[in-house]
């Protein structure tokens, strides 16, 4: 199985790659359109801001290609947000393969943004990506922007209200937390993605 990590300048590429290695998969890091188009699985990692993330995909000429992919695609953290239509972060137009808008967490007393740390996942819909996941399992989050809980949320998390922790639409999937840093729970979800 060929798995590619799209090199869109995200800084968690190293950790995602290592997490895949621990599952026995040697993923290649690439920004080559042909390699991405022909891969069995495509992962879009990302730590950083939406604007620079999209700018990098435009620079590399990968925007239309990413939209046209038909194999399983997984966006992680910022990578998940880039799958949506727009992000409030820098008012950025994103890939638009999942109909949702990314919002900053609204200011509330006691709500410290970034949402940083371990929080619980609540299943919302049955999906193969969630196999083996129990309600209340912990995952590691680091982010200031989030996708609202909505039609495409497979699992949600509470932080001043529910937001989408795992999303899917067709072959496009996203995880707002870092599966590569979410211990056994994260490894299981990554494994599930590789088996889609």
């Amino acid at each position, binding site marked *: 199985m060929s798995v590619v990590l799209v090199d869109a300048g995200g800084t968690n590429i190293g950790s995602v790659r290592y997490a895949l*290695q621990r599952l026995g998969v040697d993923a290649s890091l690439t920004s080559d359109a042909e390699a991405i188009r022909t891969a069995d699985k495509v992962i879009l990692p990302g730590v950083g801001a939406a604007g620079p993330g999209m700018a990098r995909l435009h620079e590399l000429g990968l925007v239309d290609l990413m939209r046209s992919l038909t194999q399983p695609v997984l966006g992680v953290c910022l990578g998940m947000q880039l799958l949506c239509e727009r992000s409030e972060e820098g008012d950025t137009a994103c890939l638009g393969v999942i109909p949702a808008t990314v919002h900053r967490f609204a200011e509330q007393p006691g709500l410290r*943004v970034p949402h940083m740390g371990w929080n619980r996942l609540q299943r919302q819909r049955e999906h193969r990506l969630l196999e083996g996941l129990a309600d209340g399992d912990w995952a590691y989050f680091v982010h200031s922007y989030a996708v609202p809980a909505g039609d495409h949320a497979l699992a949600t998390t509470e932080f001043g209200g529910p937001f989408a922790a795992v999303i899917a639409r067709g072959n496009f999937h996203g995880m707002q937390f870092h599966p590569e*840093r979410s*211990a056994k729970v994260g490894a299981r979800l990554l494994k599930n993605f590789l088996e889609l």
Partner: protein
Amino acid sequence: MLSRRLIPCLDVRDGKVVKGVRFRDHVVMGEIVDLALRYRDEGADELVFYDITASPEGRSVDRGWVERVASVIDIPFCVAGGIRSVDDARAVLHAGADKISVNSPALERPPLIDELAAAFGVQCVVVGVDSLRDADGEWRVRQYTGDPSRTQALPRRTLDWIVEAQQRGAGEIVLNCMGSDGVRQGYDLEQLGAARSLCQVPLIASGGAGTAEHFRDAFVQADVDGALAASVFHSGAIAIPALKQSLRAWGVAVRI
């Protein structure tokens, strides 16, 4: 609900984990990867590695051990020490670290925080603050604390710096209260509480943990998001699984 984090801190010197008392007299505690794995297995929520001599020696973090840790560890970790530019930070993040923490270089040149936040997002940027109460009763920051012969007292007030760091783009503050560090008499709740009231981003307590009650007090009284400790974990005086059970019994949200 977001859990409170327990964060073993591994001070790294010449590729080994060391621990000093009140930042002096460092003793080798073990190999980096061995300790990292041990803490992962015990249920640590996150790890922090401080290359304590990088900043005083004017060099960057050695990427080799960052990659070794990243390849075996499946919990988040933060790297600190000698990160003085966006390029330094990028190298460490690309080696697999989840966050970078800046301390002395941010005091030398505060716009470094803005640059790091712009390049990687605030969620990657931790500002470490070493603080000590002066004779006049004010808490002020210290610089180059990894090397006692170079440690400097700055005129900058700790609480002012915490506010400025957030304005510039710090996504998390680690407040190391040097007066209580390494002596296991409890976190400096007064100072942490004062910092908490000015800190809208996650605040991590550092310095002074000796008992499970000290962790409880930091979470319940000072309302910190995470508690960092070194010697009590390294020595085995406090085991993380038992600590988490105690905290849960006291009503503190922890990941078990």
